């Protein structure tokens, strides 16, 4: 009872101060965007030159005019407490619409730096998204399905639009881009040598934050920290994944409600599913290993998915990261083997668990084989994850490059989102590869456990005879 009272009181309080959705929201967005434009333009005028600042202001102004027109149109058609004026609205649409789009076309064709123009166009959308996100976070009654879905769609659109943009400096037309947009933004200007360097390595790769950082210093001497960030980029992105996981699950675990809600609910459902799945393989005495395996899987899946987020990179595209993960599993499995079986039992396990004279004779042959088999496990584990994630990210990069090349002839700073179908594929693959890594780790642990190992051997024998019979 107490908790429900506690939860209900602030909600009722907040309802009174809810900002009304509609014209108020749009008007405030217009004001905020205008202010932001002035601030950004003055900064750009100093750092990037007056042309870029002018392009930003014009782009933003066009966008604001567009939004204001739409607002006037909606007001004409469905006013609050007034009579609708459909004729006036249609007149607005007929006169202002073509004029506005002609103006937009003229802006694009005027030769002003296109990235700044498009940034200006997009500014108002960024402000709307940020405001909606803020409202969504601070006002629970805004968290309806529709707003959540709208935010999701916006986020997807942003992700799709932002990913191809950077790659226009892709190897095939790097020099072309460099020639065409000498006065363009710093990132585009300097990404060309970076892309050329990428070409030597052979594999196309989506640029990430570190790539931009280095591009900003191309031609100049890099400061020490930029070099450090570049050298350690995989480690830093892996840390980022860990921090994200810790923060998200820490937040989810904080409320400790008996009846879970929201994040706690989602986290509990996720962990419950993982718990049941891995417990089914480990057997009832394997409960102690589930936190390790579940965290391993969540960590790997998070790192896999980072490759699809613009400006981030999946640390698993480096063999170092995946081998480190496999090494952790390897050491842990050996530790379990020694502590659960004793050192003699551990060696006995590697000798193929001989019971009679014949078995001990075979042990001489089996021992090196078992050792080899154990040592090859981390290699295969790490190579599988590395190859899959690298292949997936290269696939994305290739299709992003293709999308950019198709729009090259109109000098569009963003490409066609041709990678869209492969984003779904990557989501699935990232999940499956994380699952496979965790599943194989589980199986290795099960094989080391004293009781289950015997059981597994037995089942393996039965399986072998069965398949021999089938042949």
């Amino acid at each position, binding site marked *: 009872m107490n908790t429900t009272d506690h939860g209900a009181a602030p909600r009722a309080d907040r309802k009174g101060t809810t900002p009304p959705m509609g014209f108020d929201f749009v008007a405030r967005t217009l004001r905020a965007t205008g202010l932001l434009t002035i601030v950004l333009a003055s900064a750009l005028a100093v750092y990037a030159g007056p042309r870029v600042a002018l392009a930003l202001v014009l782009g933003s102004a066009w966008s604001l005019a567009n939004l204001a027109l739409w607002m006037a149109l909606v007001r004409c058609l469905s006013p609050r407490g007034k009579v609708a004026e459909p004729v006036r609205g249609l007149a607005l649409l007929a006169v202002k619409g073509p004029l506005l789009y002609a103006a937009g076309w003229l802006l694009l064709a005027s030769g002003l730096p296109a990235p700044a123009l498009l940034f200006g166009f997009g500014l108002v959308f960024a402000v709307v998204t940020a405001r909606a996100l803020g409202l969504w976070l601070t006002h629970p009654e805004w968290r309806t399905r529709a707003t959540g879905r709208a935010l999701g769609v916006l986020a997807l659109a942003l992700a799709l639009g932002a990913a191809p943009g950077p790659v226009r400096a892709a190897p095939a037309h790097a020099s072309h881009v460099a020639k065409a947009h000498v006065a363009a933004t710093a990132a585009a200007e300097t990404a060309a040598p970076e892309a050329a360097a990428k070409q*030597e*390595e*052979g*594999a196309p790769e989506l640029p990430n934050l570190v790539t931009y950082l280095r591009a900003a210093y191309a031609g100049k001497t890099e400061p020490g920290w930029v070099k450090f960030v570049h050298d350690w980029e995989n480690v830093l992105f892996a840390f980022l994944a860990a921090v994200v996981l810790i923060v998200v699950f820490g937040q989810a675990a904080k409320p400790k409600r008996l009846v879970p809600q929201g994040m706690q609910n989602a986290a509990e459902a996720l962990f419950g599913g993982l718990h049941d*799945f891995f417990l*089914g*393989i480990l057997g009832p005495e394997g409960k102690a290993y589930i936190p390790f395996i579940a965290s391993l899987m969540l960590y790997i899946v998070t790192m896999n998915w980072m490759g699809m987020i613009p400006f981030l990179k999946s640390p698993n595209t480096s*063999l170092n990261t995946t081998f480190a993960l496999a090494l952790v599993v390897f050491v842990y499995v050996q530790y379990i083997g020694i502590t659960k079986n004793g050192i003699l039992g551990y060696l006995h396990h590697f000798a193929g668990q001989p019971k009679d004279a014949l078995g001990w004779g075979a042990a001489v042959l089996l021992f090196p084989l078992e050792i080899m088999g154990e040592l090859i496990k981390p290699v*295969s584990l790490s*190579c*599988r994850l*590395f*190859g*899959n994630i*690298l*292949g997936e990210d290269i696939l994305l990069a290739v299709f992003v490059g293709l999308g950019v090349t198709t729009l090259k002839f109109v000098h569009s700073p963003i490409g066609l989102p041709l990678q869209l179908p492969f984003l779904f594929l990557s989501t699935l693959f990232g999940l*499956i590869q994380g*699952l*496979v890594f965790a*599943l*194989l780790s589980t*199986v290795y642990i099960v094989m080391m456990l004293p009781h289950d190992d015997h059981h597994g051997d037995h089942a393996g024998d039965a399986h072998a005879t069965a398949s021999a019979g089938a042949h």
Partner: protein
Amino acid sequence: MGFANFQTALAYALPLGIGLAAIGSGIGLGLTGKGGLEAMGRQPEAAAKIQTAMILGLAFSEALTIYAFVTMFILSGKISG
């Protein structure tokens, strides 16, 4: 001249190797999936266990192509170099 021949051979061999690995791996994946689905159809109550074993089998078959892929990446730098 000898070096150029090596590079030409490598440029032909790497994609070909991936293709061959993919053929074998594809057959293996198909057989694994077929076996798993048949077993699940015959015994739907054991579907969860079969599925786990099937995913493991799929992972092992698929890993072979991935090894070829990794090898290609290790060697692909030498084509132009």
